[in-house]
């Protein structure tokens, strides 16, 4: 079986806390991301429930304005950067090597480092609540509200530092995954035989690689404005607050595709398996994904239609925004085409996937409406936008993630999440989600602004707000059912075989869960749906050899130590220079250790 060579200075335990702290195994790192991401999903959900409770009735007294501002800011930051992205990273980590027929990612220690830096950034950002207050300027932190004049205290510095650290984590992970998918595919796995989830993954990685630097610059400029009296965004000295908006949205728009494309990839895997039919229009879906990414860099000012843009830019950005609906529509029709004529198996994963199509389409329709500047002038900063974004992010991204969880749970744990509980989980989430967010279309159109901590009676908003709050509680109950399902299932014995769903892609060619080395024999790929092709053509995979000398990279302390060093640098940026210096020293020490430790 697999052997892992070790040395005296490296950890050698195979179980327990130290194993998890020093692991470089992509599967364990995937689990770390997944558990962390889901925990932050719960935190973000609590933040949302507090918001909804405050807004259930007019002139609510649950939260004051200041705390409300912190909660809606942190709800978005938590969900985007600490829940959805890490859960996406969890699937990327776990499944990239398995789906391309590799044994790990290109840089296993860098992979672990990405996780520890993520955790540092998430903890720094979230700890703001207890260190003087969380950021409260919205997740988009528009200037000059974010400046030192208006945002007194350190909250917005937690914002800049936290996001820079989180961005660093994402950048490292994306570089790693991009190299892995491009360079480590199994024999016969051409780019056009990659599973669609892999295509979406690589597109997401490039979106991040190309957009994160822009927001890093903007965050640095904001940090300098607040702490070193520069004038990037302060009008009094010649700065322009609009520059922040531009730089933010040049990142921010590709970011929303980062949030949705993984889920689009997931359902592109789930739908064929539970329709017992290959994906319809593979090439079209792949090219549509790439087109969405390219166009995604050309639409950013549609978030700024009401800032006084000139006419020509408005027309250009409106046109590009409308255009981006086309590749998305192509995908929708291809998913429908996949199911049409198929033998549908109504598993929970399938429920979530089909609901993705419907709910994301609703979100897409409202999105197209915003793409028209005159209409957007009415809708901007109202609950209509809140409705749109939650339909695409909850109805889209989250439902897709849950589809992935139910689909891949047997592969990762060897156990099946209970289907009955799963369906209850689904329906509560589906009904709850629609009850919460559909009324927001009406609220927005009747003029209810976003980001207000309370509202007066008499505007006609009372009833729908109450409905939305009730919906949010139903939704929360659905999540609780999921948690119950999860813990109940984990207490059972693993029973799953290699391929319980009769899936087509390579992760189903190994055991559930996979051995540490993923594959006994690296598969050879002859077709786009390798396992179906082999099954239909009676091709047997070769037997593993008697003695399998597979060298896996040994565990390492260095990613953990370097992550800690980065955390110190971040904390130093929020407190004392000395702490930053200490952090730099720790990072340098860990680089030295990293370079010198043996990896063979």
């Amino acid at each position: 079986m697999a052997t892992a060579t070790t040395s005296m200075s490296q950890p050698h335990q195979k179980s327990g806390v130290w194993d998890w702290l020093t692991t470089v195994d992509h599967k364990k790192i995937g689990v770390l991301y997944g558990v962390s991401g889901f925990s932050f999903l719960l935190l973000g959900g609590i933040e949302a429930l507090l918001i909804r409770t405050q807004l259930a009735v007019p002139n609510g007294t649950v939260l004051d304005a200041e705390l409300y501002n912190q909660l809606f800011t942190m709800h978005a930051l938590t969900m985007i950067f600490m829940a959805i992205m890490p859960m996406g990273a969890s699937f990327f980590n776990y499944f990239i090597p398995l789906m391309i027929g590799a044994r790990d990612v290109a840089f296993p220690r860098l992979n672990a480092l990405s996780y520890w830096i993520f955790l540092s950034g998430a903890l720094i950002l979230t700890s703001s609540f207890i260190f003087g207050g969380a950021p409260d300027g919205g997740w988009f932190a528009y200037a000059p509200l974010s400046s030192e004049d208006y945002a007194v205290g350190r909250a917005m510095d937690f914002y800049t530092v936290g996001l820079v650290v989180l961005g660093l984590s994402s950048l490292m992970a994306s570089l790693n995954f991009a190299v892995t998918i491009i360079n480590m595919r199994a024999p016969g796995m051409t780019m056009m035989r990659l599973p669609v989830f892999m295509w979406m993954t690589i597109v997401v990685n490039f979106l991040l690689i190309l957009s994160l630097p822009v927001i890093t610059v903007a965050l640095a400029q904001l940090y300098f404005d607040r702490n070193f009296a520069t004038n990037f965004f302060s009008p009094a000295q010649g700065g322009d607050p609009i520059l922040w908006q531009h730089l933010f949205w040049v990142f921010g728009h590709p970011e929303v595709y980062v949030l949705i494309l993984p889920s689009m990839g997931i359902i592109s895997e789930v739908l064929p398996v539970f329709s017992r039919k290959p994906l319809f229009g593979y090439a079209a879906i792949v090219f549509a994904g790439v087109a969405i990414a390219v166009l995604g860099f050309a639409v950013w000012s549609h978030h700024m239609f009401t800032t006084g843009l000139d006419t020509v830019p408005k027309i250009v950005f409106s046109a590009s925004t409308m255009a981006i609906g086309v590749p998305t529509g192509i995908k929708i029709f291809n998913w429908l085409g996949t199911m049409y004529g198929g033998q549908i198996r109504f598993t929970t994963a399938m429920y979530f996937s089909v609901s993705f199509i419907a709910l994301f389409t609703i979100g897409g329709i409202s999105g197209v409406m915003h793409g028209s500047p005159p209409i957007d002038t009415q809708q901007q900063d109202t609950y209509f936008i809140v409705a749109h974004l939650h339909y695409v992010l909850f109805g889209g991204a989250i439902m897709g993630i849950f589809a992935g969880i139910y689909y891949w749970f047997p592969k990762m744990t060897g156990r099946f999440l209970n289907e009955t509980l799963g369906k209850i989980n689904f329906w509560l989430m589906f009904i709850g989600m629609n009850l919460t967010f559909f009324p927001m279309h009406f609220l927005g159109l009747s003029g209810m602004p976003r980001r207000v901590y309370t509202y007066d009676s008499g505007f006609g908003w009372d009833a729908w707000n109450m409905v939305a709050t009730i919906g949010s509680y139903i939704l929360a109950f659905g999540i609780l059912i999921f948690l119950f399902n999860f813990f109940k299932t984990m207490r059972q014995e693993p029973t799953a075989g290699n391929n319980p769903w009769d899936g087509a892609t390579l992760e189903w060619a190994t055991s559930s869960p996979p051995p540490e080395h993923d594959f006994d024999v690296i598969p050879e790929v002859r077709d786009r749906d390798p396992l179906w092709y082999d099954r239909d053509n009676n091709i047997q995979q070769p037997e593993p050899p008697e003695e399998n000398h597979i060298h896996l990279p040994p565990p390492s302390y260095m990613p953990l130590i370097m992550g800690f060093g980065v955390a110190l640098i971040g904390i130093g940026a929020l407190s004392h220079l000395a702490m930053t210096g200490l952090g730099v020293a720790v990072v340098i020490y860990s680089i030295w250790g990293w370079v010198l430790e043996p990896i063979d």
Partner: protein
Amino acid sequence: MSTEAQTTESHGSPLTPRDYIKIGLILTVITIVELIASYIELGALLIPILIFLSLVKFVAVVALFMHLKYEARILTQMFVMGAVLATCILIGLLYLFRNDPTDALGGVDPASGGHAARIWIGHYLHI
């Protein structure tokens, strides 16, 4: 693209140390030319000439010193993707700030402190 390929250390580079020094000298000459150009009166030709010369230096270093001309195509694709996107965003941002109608709000004369007519690329391209 599934062909397994052995990576090689020295990519059979046709460039010798003598070549590299020659290229270095040419880059130095170009820099001197740029320096002289920035002092003599060239009017509207100055900026295109400077951009062109810098582009030559840029491409020379990337293609020859960084060896991109002799490497696998994927590397050129990766780098060009970043360089082209960065350039497009730069041009887009400059255009947006060049044509910012909010500068004229409040009775402020754009010519005195606003963005209009000052951004050289917009000014030069007359957009």
